[in-house]
């Protein structure tokens, strides 16, 4: 099995799906002859040609709108947004057409589309190359929202996303693109949407997170274990809508304590939904308050980003608050 990084795993997924299904096409800015600014689509144009690997004019509204039309007609497009921060021009298309076409045509038309792109911070990218804006999409009925944290999941989840008959927003934490390597099978495997995974088992507190925060959470958990003897269970949700509530609830049955860590803004971030759901339905499981560690409610800064995003100290503080409550 080859040891690959997330960029290579995503490339494998695209290549395999394009070989398997001639309806799969890739489009976006610089995805063709350049292979994408992060090289996720490297080599695809050589194998599949310009009709299936399409360098587009510079407009996210155009890329997404055209991809929706392609999907409705019978292709299975994968539209790249060069940085997810640039997706806002496409919002009308995403909400009104990608998400709602099935409903507004009473099921006559479907939009089997993947909109994928790099997200999140940690590379000193400033306010337009760092955002974690998943909440906008989670909030919109009709969309799946996915964010892998490691190469193995990236491949399996992207393949599944391409096969799903609804629109999927597929967010790739770019700080992990080349920093994590692991064995990824060359065979055809998929990971179902809506299923999280336990990254680290523990008994005292459940820490729910996703994307690059998985690695920061692991560091904080190790520190908490070493200094205080607390045993932290970490869950990587992987899919943010629908999120794996069964996995979270079964962990809470064991720990009774919940900390949610995400890079998205705190106000109405995904943590708010998870926390509210648990409060509504499983208050009996909780031994103390739910704590959220999120990016502060300001635009993403170019300077001091590591202080702005959840970091080990901030997560440690939240763990203290729930453990010592």
């Amino acid at each position, binding site marked *: 099995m080859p040891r690959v990084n997330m960029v290579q795993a995503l490339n494998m997924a695209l290549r395999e799906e394009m070989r398997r299904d001639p309806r799969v096409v890739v489009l976006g800015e610089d995805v063709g002859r350049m292979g994408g600014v992060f090289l996720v689509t490297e080599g695809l144009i050589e194998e599949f040609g310009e009709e299936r690997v399409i360098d587009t004019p*510079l407009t996210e509204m155009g890329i997404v709108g055209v991809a929706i039309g392609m999907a409705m007609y019978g292709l299975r497009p994968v539209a790249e947004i060069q940085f997810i*921060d640039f997706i806002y021009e496409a919002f009308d298309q995403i909400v009104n057409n990608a998400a709602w076409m099935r409903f507004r045509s009473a099921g006559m038309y479907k939009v089997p589309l993947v909109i994928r792109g790099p997200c999140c911070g940690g590379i000193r990218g400033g*306010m337009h190359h760092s955002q974690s804006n998943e909440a906008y999409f989670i909030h919109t009925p009709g969309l799946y929202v996915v964010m892998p944290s490691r190469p193995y999941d990236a491949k399996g989840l992207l393949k599944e996303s391409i096969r799903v008959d609804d629109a999927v927003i597929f967010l790739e934490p770019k700080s992990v693109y080349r920093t994590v390597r692991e064995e990824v099978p060359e065979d055809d495997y998929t990971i179902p949407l809506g299923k999280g995974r336990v990254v680290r088992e523990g008994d005292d507190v459940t820490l729910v997170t996703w994307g690059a925060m998985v690695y920061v959470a692991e560091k904080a958990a190790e520190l908490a274990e070493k200094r205080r003897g607390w045993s932290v269970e970490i869950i990587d949700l992987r899919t943010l809508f629908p999120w794996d509530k069964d996995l979270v609830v079964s962990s809470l049955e064991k720990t009774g304590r919940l900390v949610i860590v995400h890079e998205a803004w705190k106000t109405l971030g995904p943590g708010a939904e998870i926390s509210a759901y648990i409060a509504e339905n499983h208050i009996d499981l909780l031994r103390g308050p739910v704590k959220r560690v999120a990016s*502060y409610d300001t635009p993403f*800064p170019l300077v*001091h980003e590591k202080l702005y995003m959840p*970091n080990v100290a901030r997560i440690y503080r939240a763990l203290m608050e729930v453990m010592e409550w």
Partner: protein
Amino acid sequence: MTSLLGDVDLPFKPLPPRVLEEYSGMLREALGFKRAIDEEGRVVDESLLPKLTNRELAEIYEYMVRARVLDGWLLKLQRMGKVALHAPNRGQEATAVGTAKPMKPHDWLFPSYRELGAYIVRGMSEEEILDRAMNTIDDPLKGSDFAIYGNRKYNIVPAPVPVGNQIPLATGAAIAAKILGHDTVVVAMFGDGASSRGDFHTGLNFAGVFKAPVVYVLQNNQWAISVPTKRQTAAPSFAVKALAYGVPGIRVDGNDVLAVYSIVSRAIERARRREGPTLVEAVTYRLGAHTTADDPSRYRREEEVKIAERYEPLRRYRKFLESQGVLTEKEALQLEEEWDSRVEEIVRKVLQKPGLPKDVFFENVYERPPWVLEEEKKEFEESLKIAEELGIELEE
């Protein structure tokens, strides 16, 4: 008041011949090519030579030199890890300088991220630009984003990183100036790639409808990262796009600083007379990488760049100045060396400055911070203390 037959076409009929005539004239400009001097600095169109004194002509050259020297330093500093990202300007100095020079101080500029020459012309110093690029304590934009510049002091609105989203803002500011009875003209600069965005189309459409006093300068540097202009549009020029919005478009040699100056200054005058907007397409070439994060060898040949180097704007203008007896080759080179050592000194000074405070990002989100941010700031301060107690370095 409702008008009868004023707002609609009844009965339907062909457009009057004068419209076709007017549009064929506009078409010639939009598909034409204005240039004052050729690649060897020889005058080819007297009518495009601006009426400037020798001192002003030399000053224009100096601005271009300053832009080029600073560009080189920003590249160097990025390689040293002192600057997060830089978008090289090399080759596009004539468009930036030629656009900003005819503007008045109270005119507004909505630039893109590749216009060092324009900032310098409008009074921004090398020190300020370096403070910005290195996010020192004096960074006027307080660490908000990389590769962009702006300062209300010079009526330069900070460029957006999302390509082209300043275009409707420029239109709106111009309409506001008109409503308020100011004689301000607004200038927006952006690339060929930006012309594909909805913002471009809606910005020009509003400008046409409301006769906004705005000048759009589209820098066609022939690339949008790896995408050549032929993939950006099937139209034969970018200038021609304006015509669909009832706005004149003019295609000009963007490496000819005199032609850019003349055409932009005519467009500004037209806007100042409240006769409407203009789109100027400046044809140029991006000699450098897209940004310091880009490797152009993945998508374009080195030979192409070598050929383009021959047409670069400084050499051409230097030849013109020499032929006019304004500046000798030696004086020109001296100027470059002078600015290089001046900037070196500034760099040394700026490198000594402290960075921005840790809590800077809590500023300027709202005029009056809501309780949410106040609570978050408390958490922030506590987390810094915890990091200290735990002995962990958060920012490595």
